[in-house]
């Protein structure tokens, strides 16, 4: 049976290769298209080039000077409606979350993120 969100695109912004690879694997297995970035700059480049991004998952600390907070704000300028999930071991900073942004505290499994994305796309929250 085809997975419910097969064909959707997720942007995974995570500087740790193992964590990013694990998340990407789970989503690909469920039929998602996965765009990967280790830095904020690469993430924004992918957003500019992509036809569609259905959901963004971003860590807070990244491999360049940008943070996940910066990435989400920049992505929302280009795609105002795209759902954003922050996944980080750093403390939540409510004040910097984009509207309807969801914060998930690490450690978590890639499956947790997959479920959260599915829920966001189904219900909007």
């Amino acid at each position, binding site marked *: 049976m085809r997975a419910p969100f097969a064909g959707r695109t997720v942007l995974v912004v995570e500087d740790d290769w193992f964590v990013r690879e694990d998340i990407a694997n789970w989503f690909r297995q469920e039929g998602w298209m996965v765009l990967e970035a280790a830095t904020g700059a690469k993430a924004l480049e992918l957003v500019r080039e992509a036809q569609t991004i259905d959901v963004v998952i971003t860590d807070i600390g990244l491999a360049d000077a940008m943070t996940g907070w910066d990435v989400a704000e920049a992505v929302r300028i280009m795609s105002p409606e795209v759902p954003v999930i922050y996944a980080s*071991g750093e403390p939540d900073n409510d004040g910097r979350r984009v509207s309807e942004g969801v914060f998930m505290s*690490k450690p978590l499994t890639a499956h947790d993120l997959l479920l959260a994305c599915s829920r966001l796309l189904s219900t909007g929250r």
Partner: protein
Amino acid sequence: LSGGLAPPGGLQITAGASGPAACPEGLSGERAAQHYAAIVESSADAILSKDLNGVIMSWNRGAELLFGYTAEEAVGKSVTILIPADRHDEEPKILERVRRGESVDHYETIRQRKDGSLIDISLTVSPIKNERGEIIAASKIARDITESKRAQARQELLLREMDHRVKNLFALSISVLSLSGRSANSVPQLVESAGARLSALARAHALTLSHGPANAPRSTKQTTLHSLIEAIIAPHQGEGESRRLSIVGCDMEISGPVLSSLALLLHEFATNSVKYGALSATAGRVQIHCAARSGTVVINWTELGGPPVTSPIGNHGFGEFLIRATVTGQLGGEISREWKPEGLVIRLSVPRERLTG
């Protein structure tokens, strides 16, 4: 005594509502007062008295050292000369408590020196009563806690960093377990491979904690390339003459972000050697040579004395995937492997800036 330290007007020095302080044995009257005054004068804490309007009445040597005013400068002035503008509301509240006969114990606040600099202090304020038990003034003891505040801030910073690091390590562990599971053929194989990888990660991260004296707080420290290699190969290293792996060449500090990747990469080299290469034979040896040239760090892993090796065909396991993806992705480097008859030679080159941060 400087600054009229002796209690004015024949005051009893009392501890709040607990009654007059006991006289030292064998002393009475003026000698007892001198005795107390000597204690006050020699104290490292700032000890002063003020009337119920907050006017300074006495000022010890500790107060001079802490606040920078001499007794002549301070006595007769309002105690608000010591209070930063944004905390002036504290004084009326303190005086109100004193008038009610209450003490203020170990109140942590900020005061201002004569030169305008701010100091963290712990403040104890107690009422002073006359012979009739009427509250007529207040004693104030201020202790400089700047250093303990700094130590507390350092500890909190370290705890936050450790909290962040522990969370990230657990996240990484979950990913390593998950990724290992994708290429394992059986549960025992998964347990063995994931367990060994997590063990390598634990050894790598143990290096980042410095071990000071037993009662000193641990802190983070930089890890060097040699110490990381040593930690990862430790399970396969013999003792003394039978040491099987040697590390030579230059050493350098390596940055936190690449620590996990490099540790897992070196672990894969060692594991493959134990399974198929030099470390699978009793007489097998590995030489690890580190060199830095033109902004690139080159690590040569040379195996000798093992069984004849040939290039693996169709190796698409996680270990192989990890090696390629880590080198090109996380480390931004290159890897070449040559399966010589005498043993495998791996040449790993990584931009120095990636390695050292």
